[in-house]
């Protein structure tokens, strides 16, 4: 059973610094095709068009946070089943548990190492497909 390729990643992150370094980490280092949204509402519009294999959601965003964005994405047919990874600077065990219960693949913590972020994401992707 081979793992399907991970090619297109949609990143939802409001901070411009993180947007740039994450793009670098995933495009230049990881070779993925990356689309960036600055908010949950933008993600709802762009996701159906970009059709990513994976969505990375920052947890703490103004207006619509990560979990709310996830819930909204799940309401839209066509993108509801795209796997999601959360990204957060705060990873208390009870929060992690809550996120896992929402059915996401994993949580990536900030601050991340730009040189190894893409490896972490690939590992999570492979792990997810191996167990399904």
């Amino acid at each position, binding site marked *: 059973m081979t793992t399907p390729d991970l090619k297109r990643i949609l990143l939802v992150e409001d901070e411009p610094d*993180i947007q740039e370094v994450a793009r670098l980490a995933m495009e230049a280092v990881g070779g993925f095709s990356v689309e960036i949204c600055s908010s949950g509402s933008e993600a709802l519009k762009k996701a159906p068009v970009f059709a990513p294999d994976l969505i990375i959601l920052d947890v703490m965003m103004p207006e619509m946070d990560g979990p709310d964005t996830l819930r909204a994405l799940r309401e839209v047919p066509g993108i509801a089943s795209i796997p999601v990874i959360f990204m957060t*600077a*705060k990873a208390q065990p009870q929060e992690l548990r809550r996120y896992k219960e929402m059915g996401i693949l*994993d949580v990536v*913590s900030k*601050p*991340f*190492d730009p040189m190894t972020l893409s490896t972490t994401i690939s590992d999570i992707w492979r792990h997810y497909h191996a167990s399904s």
Partner: protein
Amino acid sequence: MPHPNSPEEQLEALRQTYASQLSAKLRLIEETSEKLFKDSGDKEALKKLHYLAHSLAGSGATFGFSSLSRTGSALESFVSDIIENKLTITGEHTAGINNLLDELRKASDKSEKIIYSKQGKDTFPEKADSRPIFIVDDDVDIAQAIASQLISFGYTVQIFTDIAGLEKAMPHTEPAAIIMDIIFPEGEFAGTDVISQIRLHHKTRVPVIFVSVHDDMEARLRAVRADSDGYFVKPVDIYDLIDILAILTNPKDTEPYRILIVEDEPELAKFYSLILEQAGIITSIVTEPLTVMQNMVKFDPDLILMDLYMPDCSGMELARIIRQIPEYISLPIVFLSIERNLDKKLTAMGYGGDDFLTKPIQPVHLISAVTTRVERARALKNLMIRDSMTGLLNHSNILENLDREVSLAKRKTGKLAFAMLDIDNFKDVNDAYGHLTGDLVLKSLARLLQDRLRKTDLIGRYGGEEFAIILLDTDGACAEKILRELKDSLSQIRYQSGGAEFSITFSCGLAAFPAYEDPEKLILAADKALYKAKHAGRDRIILAE
């Protein structure tokens, strides 16, 4: 040399941009804090401050400012504590925030090299503890002072200014240790009371160190009754505190006990095993006494639980055989038997047993007899093989280990790397800051090595300021990478001594097996490489070709 516009170069450019924008970010945090101080009911300002701190925590290290991430995280926890518990902002909160802002400014001034944390699926398995230390004190200045020292040693810290905050966090978190004041607005002994409560309900035992202005018997007694691991009178000597923390949070000492059960009746053996395993002890069963030796080698027990009367070979005979082997002279052996005859029991002890338990045995007695013996045996063993100041393996022990691991590597045609690490200009540190600080630096480096290296790596103190590391199942390139990250970690640490701050570096020589095929060649090559490193400018790692 990375070529132009390689990811590394692009990253460097992003880092420079981030660095140039840092003062604007800090100004924004300061302005938001001012708003909050002017009107402590300003919820918007509070939320914004939280968001800004969170942002720094999550970005700092990515762009080369590790302390910024850690301090940002401390500020974020501090503010989040206020928000979640709907606290009114007092003068102390203000002081706390100001202190953290100071730290943020300092952290942003120093552009540091990058250090990371491994995420999720690790490249380096089994890293040691990065759980936070909780500091609980309603006196914010004291909490901050301790926190900033701990942070500069590389610890992660979370501050609580009231008991409610701690109580809320405990059911969900696993701190590495709690540093707890005793007097709180709730009462003279509220600190010890709340810890006693927590001990009753919390699933694991968290180390707790009490700090207090109280120095009287009642306070100390209450602390003991709350099962404390340490007690310091304020003002706290940070050196002593860190020493104790290092011992309490040392991952090697918290490895589960391993008990070998030698009992010819399988049902009984299973019964003992179940009791012990429920107490978190790892067991292995031998029902044929004559096979005990190969089992011991494989299982490496801390203690043997042995039936006295068995066919083929009695417990006493087996104990004598085991004691013939120098390595097992002090391995604790506890006999089990229905034997009630005191003389026979004493004879059994004379044959090499350490204790005698009479069947039928109460589970709680079994567990306590076994655990006290194992603890004592481990402490004794450590005395023999470890350097007392740093807790690392001592010189002769690390060499013995090298011999053993090289033989093992040869047999399995495996790989292994040997590193010799020497602190640069250590004499200058002692001269400038005193020997007490010098010792602290050694202990802190020892702790860093244990934290950042893997559980399988063997770390020893080779000489005064020299360390030796055996990296199992690792090739030269990988070892070099690991050590480089260690070097970067070290460069993040700012030691403090009497108001001054300094940092240290090390030079390192590395040699790998099988390129160097025996222990002597490995040591010689690593030593030569270390010499090269020192003479090439220090603060570097050289792999012997």
